[in-house]
């Protein structure tokens, strides 16, 4: 249990895909203007990282070295495509808003970098916990970003109006505002949890 908590903490905080490794920023910025979009994107990230970890563990000894990563990416695309079809059938407004950024998630650095990492881990359970933590880390950041951007920028919470639209900080709903907010979040994160680049250098 203790090792599970430690691994989760490591994945969510010290190896957070967005705040520590700066991966998956494009889909993060695109889908963090509304909380509903952020939840869907975050869930997709969790399922995709978990699935790609499982696939890379399964094909570890069965496939030639050259195509392991290719197969892993292919399966990530497969999962995202399933999500995309399900969203179009049952949650069309969210699908229309997220648009091309959902397929983009399957080829972000999160899947590339983490797939290599999952392959090197000895136990399958460790790889799965690490994948779950990575997905949860992405989910946490995109949810927080969407919370700030939707509530302060647009004056709504999950689409419910909290205060009049004209009092909202409109710049937060634009890509530039999202980038500025992400910069602030990364700066605050690194102030409290340290700079992963410096830690790497020290090692």
């Amino acid at each position, binding site marked *: 249990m203790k090792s599970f908590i430690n691994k989760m903490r490591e994945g969510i905080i010290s190896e957070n895909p967005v705040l520590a490794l700066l991966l998956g920023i494009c889909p993060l910025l695109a889908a963090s*203007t509304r909380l509903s979009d952020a939840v869907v994107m975050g869930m997709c990230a969790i399922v995709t990282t978990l699935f790609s970890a499982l696939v890379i563990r399964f094909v570890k000894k069965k*496939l*030639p070295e*050259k*195509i392991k990563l*290719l*197969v892993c990416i*292919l*399966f990530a*695309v*497969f999962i995202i*495509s*399933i999500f995309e*079809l*399900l969203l*179009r*059938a*049952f949650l*069309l*407004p969210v699908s*229309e*808003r997220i*648009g091309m950024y959902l397929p983009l998630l399957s080829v972000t650095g999160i899947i590339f970098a983490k797939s290599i990492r999952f392959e090197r881990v000895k136990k399958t359970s460790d790889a799965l916990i690490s994948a779950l933590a990575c997905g949860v880390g992405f989910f946490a950041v995109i949810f927080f970003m969407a919370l700030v951007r939707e509530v302060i920028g*647009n004056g709504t919470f999950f689409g419910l109006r909290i205060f009049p639209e004209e009092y909202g900080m*409109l710049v937060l*709903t*634009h890509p530039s505002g999202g980038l500025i907010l992400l910069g602030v979040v990364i700066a605050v994160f690194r102030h409290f949890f340290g700079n992963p680049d410096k830690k790497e250098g020290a090692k």
Partner: protein
Amino acid sequence: MTDKKKVFLSPEKKKELLHTTLILAGILAVVSLALSGLNMLLRQSIDKAEMKPFVSAMSRICPAESYEETDYEHSDAGGVYALYKAYNGTELAGYCVETRANGINRDLRVAVGIDKDGKILKTEIISERERQSAGTKTTDEEFLSQFEGKSGEVTFVNGKASRESEIYDVVGSDISSPAVVDAVNRASLAVGNLREKEEKEAAEE
């Protein structure tokens, strides 16, 4: 003349390459088959979900007892995605048209209700992904109500409208507002073409 060196692959290398290619092709085939199967399974739900906003808008843009889809050919339609006839009993009440035009981020879906004489009854934006400032304000009643009662082609003007056929930009959006005007014009044109075609057919009979 330059000598070209021919590169030969060893039999082991060839075998390895073939093996790798076959594995990748096999996985790709399985994944593609699974996805196309799922697509076929969900096709009806996807089509239904895509039509839902327009179907629910029909009773608002052209209230009637029943609606019937026309066989308007989409290849000639130029941005017209659906055209329904509205009936009160057996009498034609008007037309409901869904058109799409290029917005800032993606297509703007516009539903236009037109009466049997070709006059616009009501216009609604059923889906948009414009910027949250001027672009999203094209859904405002102040802008959309300008189309009501107009027939034929309308033109977009930046300042105040001086003619009956002009629509002015009340929201300050250089891209979204002309896109809506363009979509409404396409709807009027589609209904005009359909009426012309039907009148010709009736005359021939």
